[in-house]
């Protein structure tokens, strides 16, 4: 194994892109197969490396997707999946109304969907709840992993295969809230900090008008 790693230092490092258990089981064999391919006098080295460069990224993605799917089905806690689905429902109105408004040519913009209180619900409350539920379930998962395994915090945080739905929903919810809070046109609903900083009197005037 050491000889093969010495011979192919870059390729053996790239094998770290595969899932851990896959790499442990087949990494050495893959290096040996590469050595055999390059030592084969019937094949040119250039064509072998071209084949490797085409094969490698596809198989890494395929194995990562496969292992993630297996982890979701077997080792991912049900509360992570349940809260991610709940979060998806909570942020769905944001995407639905924005897309519908675009399709209908700003018709929703002039309807009750864009009234301040309704806006507040689907722009602020629902995404905040999605972030809250998923952040709590992710923290709960980190705690339970800490108890179950002897891995360090960094290793647990990097193990996104078992927690990615919660993280994805947190990122999505925070993204929506970020768009809302920094969007120039909603400063009088939410209090855009940038606009307030630049022009507090205008912001205050706008809030009063609402």
């Amino acid at each position, binding site marked *: 194994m050491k000889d093969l790693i010495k011979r192919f230092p870059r390729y053996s490092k790239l094998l770290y892109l595969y899932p851990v258990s*896959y790499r442990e*089981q*087949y990494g050495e*064999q*893959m290096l*040996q*197969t*590469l050595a055999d*391919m390059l030592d*084969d006098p*019937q094949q040119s080295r250039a064509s072998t490396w071209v*084949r*490797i460069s*085409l*094969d*490698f990224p*596809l*198989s*890494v993605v*395929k*194995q990562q997707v*496969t292992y993630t799917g297996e982890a979701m089905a077997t080792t991912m806690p049900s509360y992570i999946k349940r809260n991610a689905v709940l979060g998806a429902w909570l942020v769905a109105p944001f995407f639905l109304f924005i897309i519908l408004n675009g399709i209908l040519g700003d018709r929703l913009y002039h309807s009750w969907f864009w009234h301040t209180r309704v806006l507040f619900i689907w722009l602020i409350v629902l995404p905040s709840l999605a972030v809250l539920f998923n952040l709590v379930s992710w923290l709960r998962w980190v705690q339970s992993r800490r108890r179950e395994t002897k891995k360090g915090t960094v290793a647990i945080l990097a193990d996104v295969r078992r927690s990615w739905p919660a993280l994805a929903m947190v990122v999505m919810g925070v993204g929506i809230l970020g768009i809302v809070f920094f969007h120039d046109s909603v400063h009088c609903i939410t209090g855009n900090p940038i606009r307030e900083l630049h022009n507090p009197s205008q912001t205050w005037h706008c809030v009063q008008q609402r």
Partner: protein
Amino acid sequence: MQQIAHDSGGRINLGPGALYGTIKQLRQDNLIEEVPFPDDPRRRYYRLTKQGWDTLGSELEYYSQTVRLARERRIIGESMGAV
């Protein structure tokens, strides 16, 4: 891999990633198993399990029936697709 490339007329050129992905899947499905081969510890050898042979048999039977049907319907000639 050379055998596969040769048998497919060069149409299928597996790399190590695709090869071991396939091996992993076949092992998970219990169609192949690793065979101990102490003479060369660097290499791993695999063989078909009983379930693997059964699956291979039923697949070959399926293809055989397909070719037979195609021949009966005159989609392919008598000389083609002899199984």
